[in-house]
């Protein structure tokens, strides 16, 4: 199960962050998800990985461009990121977020600073921060179903057992 709504302090990073930057290729050949969480964003800011637990990650446009590596979103989920909010996402990264059960919201013009408390709700597609409310692009019913199951593994487990 993934909670589709929540609250946490913002961690803000820039635009066009590629998945090599989220988790470098040199850490991919393992099955240990802890390794990915530990080294998340290492080449961007080595201190970032320690600040991710319980946070809402707020990024610039085109988040997660580049390689399709799912380890990037697994790293964020494993590191304890509650949700990712951006004006736009690279499409594979966006799918991967849904598929690992990491809430993801497309939101334009979000004004937000590091440490500010953000409340998000994927079911109605809203983000609230600093007294302002923002409307996000809505998710399809299928995407919501996968997300609420906790990701594609749980979604298929559920469907196969029916």
């Amino acid at each position, binding site marked *: 199960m993934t909670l589709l709504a929540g609250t946490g302090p913002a961690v803000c990073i820039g635009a*066009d962050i*590629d998945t*090599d*930057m989220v988790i*470098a*290729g*040199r850490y*991919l*050949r*393992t*099955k240990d998800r802890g390794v990915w969480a530990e080294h998340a964003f290492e*080449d961007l800011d080595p201190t970032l990985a320690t600040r991710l637990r319980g946070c809402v990650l707020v990024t610039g*446009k*085109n988040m997660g*461009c*580049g*390689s*399709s*590596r*799912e*380890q990037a*979103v697994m790293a964020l989920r494993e590191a304890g990121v509650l949700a990712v909010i951006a004006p*736009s*996402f*690279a*499409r*594979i990264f966006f*799918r*991967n977020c849904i*598929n*690992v059960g990491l809430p993801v919201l497309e939101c334009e013009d979000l004004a937000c600073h590091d440490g500010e408390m953000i409340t998000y709700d994927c079911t109605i597609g809203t983000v609230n921060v600093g007294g302002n409310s923002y409307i996000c692009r809505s998710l*399809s019913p*299928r995407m919501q179903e996968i997300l609420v199951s906790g*990701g*594609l*593994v749980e979604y*298929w*487990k559920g469907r*196969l057992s029916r």
Partner: protein
Amino acid sequence: METLSEKILGAQAGNFSDKRVDKAFCHDGTGIQAKMIYDEMGAPGIANPETCYVIYDHISPANTSQTADLHKELREFASRSGMHFSEIGGGICHQYMAEGRILPGEVVIGADSHSCTLGAFGALATGVGASDMAGIWVSGETWLRVPESIAIYISGSLAKGVEYKDLALAYVAELGMDGATYHALEFLGDSASEIPMEGRLTLSNMVVEAGAKTGLWYADDVTREYLGRYGKSSSRQEPDDEAVYSEELWIDLQGLEPLLAVPHRVDTVKPVSELVGTSLDQVFIGTCTNGRYEDLARAASILDGKQVAVRTVVVPASRADYLRAVNSGVLATLVGAGCVIGPPGCGPCLGAHMGVLGDGEVGLSTANRNFRNRMGVGGSYYLSSPSTAAASAITGEISDPREVL
């Protein structure tokens, strides 16, 4: 009144479509992830194993015992499940699939971002992550959002020393790294029908660098002739005059010159002429963008009888490309010029082995990405065509191929 994406997916742009997947493929990197996820799903078996491919290219051959163990696990799984399997040395998944395994109109899903390459055949080909691949193994289907489309109209013909890679860099620069996010690109215009399949594959390969879902070509005589060599027949696809495009780009090949993407963004593009003389530590010719036989042959025509001044790594895209280069003498020319030849596969492109850069080093590569630290921590990469790469290998600095042709 439909774009090719709308025709293939059977719905209008913006809608969601559940589609049977005609071909699904993954590589050693995403495949092992998909296998772990598939195991967790607890499915009774693979829905359509005859349509699924596992292709070893990313770290191939294995570089460490850890990689070898993961290779072993996935190899055994592929063998048990009845999926097609391409062993190390067969080539990069996109090129391997391009060798007569994709037909116009198919829905093709690859667990790799450059799966858009196969849009060159008029197939709706796009990349997904490992979970999506596992879901396709379980069900044989996936959901897709029908993309809006951007048309690129191509006119004129290339000048000597200029390649379709230069056109690819030009449209990425024009659109920007996210200019085509969630969109399909369609390659149209008077010159489209004259562009050979190797050029189409290069052009479709790089659409994801502008964020696009796929890069589509309408199947025509070039497609039919190419697939005919693999014993496959294919039907034509005709563009619809009234199809709605969200954006249109016109590019005249005549005015195109050799280009470079400069570190560390693919959309930061400059003419080679502005950077001539930039010192290099390594040149790399290969990848799913530019490791095909024709790319190696163009490099060899420039390197013939010359010696490289910097270490130059050449990695053929597939075994078929490698064999053609052996039989035609292209490989002998490259080796004679001092190039190092790697086994068919991705080579150093993803930064694992076989020619990554050291700290502070500068490289020139025919690949599709020059992200910071991707091909070696602390290294910087320029991206170019094979002709520019070969001309630069001779001098050890960025050089204009038009000067040596």
